[in-house]
């Protein structure tokens, strides 16, 4: 679990949503809904604090006190290239992907990745059309030591529910109505 991205609550007001700046000390964490490292890159996920799932889980999730946030230097990452990738084709032990530069306007690249570049979780998420982020740069340790890193993280898509499909149909009706194309 990546605690840095865990859902944080203000100790002064249990089960009240708080901002990061308010939650500097004495934080409560609902571990059952903490984000995983794969969630970090998912811009499509609503913040958990705003989700109905989070609200339902909170009263039953046992609070855990975390120690005061450390001010010691931590490992950080210097990004040299960041690309959004789409899986095109999957072959034996490798897959082909199209990569678009997010930080600069470098040309679009097609590259072949080995399954060995993937975590177990990444292998589960691998399918044609799946989206991932590829970060290349340096990891800098607290002592200042640099190491080269190329990190591939798949975007997790939200779970699909029956209600989502019904809502999609309803919204499609609304769109057609707005456009004057409804039957």
């Amino acid at each position: 679990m990546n605690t840095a991205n865990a859902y944080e609550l203000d100790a002064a007001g249990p089960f009240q949503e708080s901002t990061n700046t308010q939650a500097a000390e004495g934080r409560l964490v609902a571990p059952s809904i903490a984000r995983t490292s794969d969630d970090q890159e998912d811009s499509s996920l609503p913040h958990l604090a705003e989700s109905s799932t989070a609200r339902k889980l909170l009263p039953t999730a046992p609070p855990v006190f975390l120690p005061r946030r450390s001010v010691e230097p931590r490992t950080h990452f210097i990004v040299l290239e960041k690309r959004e990738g789409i899986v095109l084709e999957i072959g034996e032990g490798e897959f082909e992907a199209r990569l678009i530069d997010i930080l600069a306007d470098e040309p679009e690249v097609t590259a072949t990745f080995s399954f060995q570049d993937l975590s177990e979780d990444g292998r589960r998420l691998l399918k044609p059309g799946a989206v991932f982020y590829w970060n290349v740069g340096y990891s800098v340790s607290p002592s200042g030591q640099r190491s080269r890193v190329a990190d591939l993280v798949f975007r997790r898509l939200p779970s699909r529910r029956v209600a989502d499909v019904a809502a999609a149909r309803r919204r499609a009706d609304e769109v057609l109505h707005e456009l004057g194309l409804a039957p």
Partner: protein
Amino acid sequence: MSSDSPPRAPHPEDVEVHVFGPGYGESLLVHLGQNRWIIVDSCKKSSNASPAAIEWLRQIDVDPGQAVTHVVATHWHDDHVRGLGETLEHCAAATLVCSSALLSKELIALFEDAAQPLQAHSSGVDEIRRLVAELKRRKSNGVSKTVGLGVEFATANKRIVLEEGPPSCEVWALSPSSAEIELSLREFARMLNDSPMNKAKPVVRPPKPNDTAVVLWIKVGERILLLGSDLEERRSNASSRAATDCGWSAILASTVRPRSQAEIFKVAHHGSETGHHDEIWSSLLRATPLSLVTPFVRGTSRLPNDDDKARILSLSGEAYMSAPRRPKKYRPKDRVVAWAYQGKNPTVPAAMGHIRARVSALDATSRWDILLLEGAVPLAEG
């Protein structure tokens, strides 16, 4: 072949066909005479660039907001829609032409159910969403010029444009057939209904083959063009109905389509075998036409392949391709980034190429003037 610098707008009596295409992507721009333009599909030089057709019009001092009368979305494959929403936004006076399947409840519901837009990639889903947003904006601002909203649904054997001249012009859709539209709607509904619940949302990808691609037949003065889009021909394993009522077979079987043969052909589906039908070349085209091809280069996929190229060359009088088929090796400048790409065979598509074919619309005997810009090449050399 001639060179021409700086570029200038065509004479009002000229017909022009522009084919833009890097290794991955395709867009056409056609001058119908009298500063009337249509844009077919969209592609861009890079993520931050404007759509290629819009950039060219600005280069020759033509205002796309006034001069473009129609923007045609032939289908929603990623290599044909990059910048399509932006194109419609720039072309305020243009009618959107597309298959009714593209604005069907089934497809919109599928898109609504899909994951949120990506940061950098322009997918068919995102571009159609942007088209719909622009149509909504027009509707709410009351700027739609028709009872609907400035949308014309393309179906087989339907005339979309008829303008007086000189030169007069008319544009017909030769596809999709009603059978193709029905099959597509069924497929979209199946994709929406059959995706499993309580698992990650599916990634929405266009079905194959390209059933609802819009093929255009255009006549300007005395000149006739056939723009084949990505229409494919169904082969074995298809139901008998699909085999005869879909693809090029459906167009060839039509008794009500325009009968005149075209002299210039934007070859269908990047020149692939699946986009080929012998009778296209004997029934829809004059002998040895001028053929224009856009390649499809993505990783290990290359179209047209060597056999396709030989076939097109044997059937054409002249043939050109908007970009070479060979991708370039990607060589990052930073050594750490280069280290990360080691063993991954990184390639970049060829740069955006551009073919311009121009001729007088009123003189049936004059020859096409071909201008190859940027990476465009004769097909034999590509």
